[in-house]
């Protein structure tokens, strides 16, 4: 028999102050999510391949279509790639949640006193952490090719993407919760949504040459405004009006995503 001082006897968990526990819960969920990637970084390394392919196989083509024109094309292209990666990463984040929902891990966390909104943010921030590593890699590789670095603009741009990513991630989690147990809705809607959102935002090709109706559609796409704001910030500008629109779009996506996602969890999720 093992002799242990550790008791199994009930010991009440103390109540915590709301603000401090919110930050803690975000940290707890984030740490839990990122731990497998840290322990086994191979998967994370593979996700680095995607931006590199874009940078080397697609970037050079842009000079030919006059995007930004000549040397400025990297200034235009790099923020676009980062927005696109934000679309793919957090948008697919719901997949992990779906898996944990179909297993029992999500239920186990929902029975804990963790804040529901914090659970969404913690998960989304894990996707953003991956994006952050990708962003650093892209910027480091783009600088020797002629990309001009504005550190403050870069920081502000990444912050903008973090807010947008949390919102997009939350929407993806919401979709995952609504589509359980089959998951068909999740795959269907993400596939259906990601391409129009991307194509109609001008992240890869400028919208300026498109017909008027296409440009009109693009203006109601929040991704367009975020991409425009990113491009302004990446040229070191902080006064361009597009930045305010971008910030507003990102904040709106985050607010809608977190509100709906939290409400869905309160209403009860499960299979």
């Amino acid at each position, binding site marked *: 028999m093992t002799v242990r001082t*550790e*008791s199994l006897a009930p010991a009440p968990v103390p*109540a915590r102050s709301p603000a401090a526990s919110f930050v803690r819960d975000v940290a*707890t969920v984030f740490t839990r999510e990122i731990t497998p990637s840290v322990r086994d970084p191979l998967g994370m390394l593979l996700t680095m391949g995607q931006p590199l392919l874009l940078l080397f196989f697609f970037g050079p083509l842009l000079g030919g279509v006059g995007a930004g024109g000549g040397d400025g094309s990297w200034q235009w292209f790099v923020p676009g790639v980062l927005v696109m990666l934000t679309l793919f990463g957090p948008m697919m984040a719901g997949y992990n949640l779906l898996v944990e929902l179909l*297993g029992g891990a999500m239920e*186990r966390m929902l*029975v*804990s*006193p963790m804040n529901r909104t914090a659970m969404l943010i913690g998960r989304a921030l894990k996707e953003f952490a991956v994006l952050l590593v990708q962003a650093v890699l892209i910027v480091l590789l783009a600088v020797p090719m002629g990309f001009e670095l504005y550190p403050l603009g870069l920081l502000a741009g990444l912050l903008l993407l973090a807010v947008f990513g949390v919102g997009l991630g939350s929407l993806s989690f919401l979709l995952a919760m609504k589509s359980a147990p089959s998951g068909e809705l999740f795959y269907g809607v993400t596939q259906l949504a990601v391409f129009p959102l991307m194509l109609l935002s001008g992240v890869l090709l400028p919208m300026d040459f498109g017909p008027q109706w296409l440009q009109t559609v693009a203006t109601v796409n929040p991704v367009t405004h975020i991409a425009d704001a990113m491009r302004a910030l990446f040229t070191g500008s902080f006064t361009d009006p597009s930045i305010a629109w971008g910030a507003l779009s990102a904040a709106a996506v985050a607010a809608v995503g977190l509100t709906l996602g939290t409400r869905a969890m309160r209403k009860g999720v499960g299979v």
Partner: protein
Amino acid sequence: MIHARKLSRTFTRKRGKERVDAVRGLDLDVEAGTLLAFLGPNGAGKSTTLRMLTTLLPPTSGTATVAGCDIARDPDGVRRRIGYVGQKNSASDHHRVRDELVAQGRAYGMTRARAGERADALLDRLDLQELANRTPTTLSGGQRRRVDIALGLVHAPELLFLDEPSTGLDPHSRAEVWNFILRLREESGMTLFLTTHYLEEADSMAERVVIVDRGRTIADGTADELKSELAGDRIDLGLRDAADAERARGVAARFSSEAAAAPDPSPAPAEPADTTVRIPVPNADTALPELLAAMEGAGIKVATARGVRPTLDDVFLALTGRSLTEEEPTE
């Protein structure tokens, strides 16, 4: 520990056209320290009730306090005090066992150091030390179940819910899980609320059995109470020929707890061989010697005699006319 009043949950499917009343007005009171088994066929509302009591699902109507906190007004208070071991595996496939335990401790507000200590203690208690750095995909069903239980105990809750804790396990792992549950209870006095569809488990382990059917409680008591009140004992006598059997039925009629002892009034099994007489009695242990003496007095030679205690399935059958075991889970 649990007080539920008129707890109800209605699901709407197909855009509100189809209403399913999963739980309808369930009342339940559970004292602290009880080991309660929640029984019922599939679709009876067991899991839905459990999900409401554990704050996973808000009730459509009705109220409940769990561990002193209202499930609707103070779900956070409930969550801090209860543990839950769901039907599915609580640890994610790609996370190491110990990492999950630490994360769970953090979820309940422990410091990293304290969560680590607690994780190690539970790994030790559940004999999982060697699996600490493995991922659940590499574990056996019994090992995964032990991990699930450890995750439910991280914060030492005063009340632990277990949803089908032994389902899908081999007999050895089932025994192991039960062994641990019983030891846990003895040591900590924790209140345990579990659902199971293994009737013999509920019968032998639980102090209190609550049977639900179609969203309502239909029976509540100790297994012995339910059996003697709702199903009752029986004595099976084997005679040497049909003529003796006929005479024995006449004698037995005086002992029977039902109006007519002969022929066998219970609808359940096919009519036994006509040399067998089945006699429902209030208490088989005391009735058997008296019955044998009466047979002796009447000059009837009894070949075999057996007192039969009812099972919980007999209780369910008596209450609903259906058998619990007919509805084996299809999962």
